[in-house]
C-alpha cells in the first residue's frame, strides 16, 4: 500500500513537477483553443459546400470527408509531421497538430452539421427565401440555429473527443499535458505525474460530460 501511494499518489513528486505539468496544461488548453474552432470552422465550410447542387462536387466532398474519417488521427498526425517535410513542407509540432486536427475533426464536424442542416424542413428555407432573405441570411438566421440545436448533443460529444485527442500531440514532441507528465515521470522515476495529468483531464472534461448527458436526456425541443 505504501509502495502504491509513494509511486502513484506521491504529492511531493507532483509538487516538484508542477512547473512541467502547468506548462503542459497551458499547452493542452492552447491546442484545444486551436483544434476545436478550426475543426468547427472547417466542418461548417464542408457542410455548406456539400449543399451545392453540383453532383460531382458533392461526390468529391463526400470522398474527402470519408477519407479523413477513415484515416486514424495518429497516422495522419505522424504523416503531416514526419512525411510532409519530404515534400518540403515543414510545419513543426504545433503547425502539424493544427493541420492534422483541421483535416480530421472538420470531417466529423461536417457530417454532424450536414445532418443538422438536413433536419431542418424545406419549408423553413422556402418561407425565408420567399420573404426576400438571401441564401446566406437564410442559413445564418433560420437554418443554422435550428440545425445546431438539433445536433447539439453530437456536437458536444465530438468536441469531447477532439479535446481528448489533443494528447496525441505528445508523439510529435509537442509539450502538452501528457508529454510533460511523461517527462516528469522519466525524470522522477515515479508515475504520480501521470496520475496528476489524468486527474487534470478528468477535471477538464467532467463538466463537458455532464453537459452532454443533460443534453441527451432533455425533453425533445419545441420544434
Amino acid at each position, binding site marked *: 500500500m505504501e509502495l502504491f501511494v509513494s509511486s502513484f499518489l506521491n504529492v511531493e513528486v507532483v509538487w516538484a513537477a508542477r512547473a512541467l505539468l502547468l506548462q503542459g496544461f497551458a499547452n493542452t488548453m492552447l491546442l484545444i483553443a486551436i483544434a476545436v474552432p478550426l475543426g468547427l470552422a472547417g466542418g461548417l465550410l464542408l457542410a455548406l459546400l456539400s449543399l451545392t447542387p453540383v453532383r460531382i462536387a458533392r461526390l468529391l466532398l463526400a470522398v474527402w470527408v470519408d477519407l479523413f474519417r477513415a484515416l486514424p488521427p495518429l497516422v495522419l498526425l505522424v504523416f503531416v509531421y514526419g512525411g510532409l517535410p519530404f515534400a518540403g513542407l515543414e510545419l513543426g509540432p504545433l503547425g502539424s497538430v493544427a493541420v492534422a486536427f483541421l483535416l480530421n475533426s472538420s470531417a466529423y464536424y461536417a457530417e454532424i452539421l450536414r445532418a443538422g442542416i438536413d433536419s431542418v*424542413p424545406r*419549408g*423553413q428555407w*422556402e*418561407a*425565408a*427565401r*420567399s*420573404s*426576400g*432573405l*438571401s441564401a446566406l*441570411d437564410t442559413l445564418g*438566421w*433560420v437554418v443554422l*440555429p*435550428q440545425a445546431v*440545436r438539433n445536433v447539439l448533443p453530437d456536437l458536444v460529444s465530438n468536441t469531447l473527443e477532439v479535446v481528448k485527442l489533443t494528447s496525441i500531440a505528445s508523439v510529435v514532441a509537442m509539450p502538452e499535458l501528457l508529454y510533460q507528465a511523461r517527462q516528469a515521470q522519466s525524470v522522477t522515476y515515479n508515475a504520480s505525474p501521470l496520475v496528476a495529468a489524468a486527474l487534470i483531464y478528468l477535471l477538464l472534461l467532467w463538466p463537458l460530460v455532464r453537459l452532454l448527458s443533460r443534453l441527451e436526456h432533455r425533453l425533445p425541443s*419545441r*420544434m
Partner: protein
Amino acid sequence: MLSRPIIEARAIHKSFGPLKVLDGVDLVVAERELVFIIGPSGSGKSTLLRCLNRLEEPTSGHIVVDGIDVLAHRTDINALRRRIGMVFQSFNLYPHMTALGNVALALRRVVGLRRRDAEERARSALARVGLADKADAYPAQLSGGQQQRVAIARAVALEPRVMLFDEPTSALDPELVGSVLRVMRQLREGGMTMVVVSHEMEFARAAADRVLFMDGGRVIEQGPPDCLFGAPKSDRLRAFLRSLERH
C-alpha cells in the same frame, strides 16, 4: 379587368423530370383582384403559385410581377420577393423565434430597418391579425390558426404588392379556419391583390373576383365564382365540384 395587370404569367410550363406539372398556363391578375385557384390535388395549382415568386423555376414561360421580369437573370429576386408575400399550408414559422421575431426578421435583414423600427412595425402587423398579445409567444405555444395569422403578419409587414396563399387553411382544425379567413377577408377589404389556392368554396363564393379551375396542368375553366359554381361548363369541373360536396 379592374385595372392594369400586376401579375402576368404567360405559357408557363413546368416539368419535374418526365412529369409535366404545368402545361401552358396563363394567369393574369389585375391590381386589387382576388383570384381563387381550385382543382384536384396534382393539378399543378400550388406549383403555379410557387412559380410566381420563383420558388419553382418554370421550364419555360414568361412571368412579370409589378412590372418586373421574374425569370430574368439580372432581376434581383430577393428585392422582388419582398413585394410578393407568400403564406404556406404548413405555416413554416421559424420555431426558434418568437412571433415578433418571425415578423421582424425580414424587416431587419431585407428592408434594412433598425431593430426598434422593425419591432414596432412587426407589432403593428401582429395587431392587424389580432395577435398583439402574442408577440412574445413561440410558435409551439400558439394554435394552428394563430400560427397561420403570424405567418400572414410576417408577409404583410413587408407591405407586398401581391399576396400568394398556398392552401392556407388546409392544415387547420375546422374551428380554427374562420379566424384565418377573417384576416384574409380583412386584407381583401384593404385592397390587397391576392392569389389563393384553396378548397374553401364558401370563401371563394363570397370574396373572389374570379375562380380558376385547373386540372392536369392546365386551366380548364375560369370566371366569376357564381358562373363557375352555378353553371360549370366542363365535365371535369362538374365532377370536381360533386366530389367536394360529398365531403
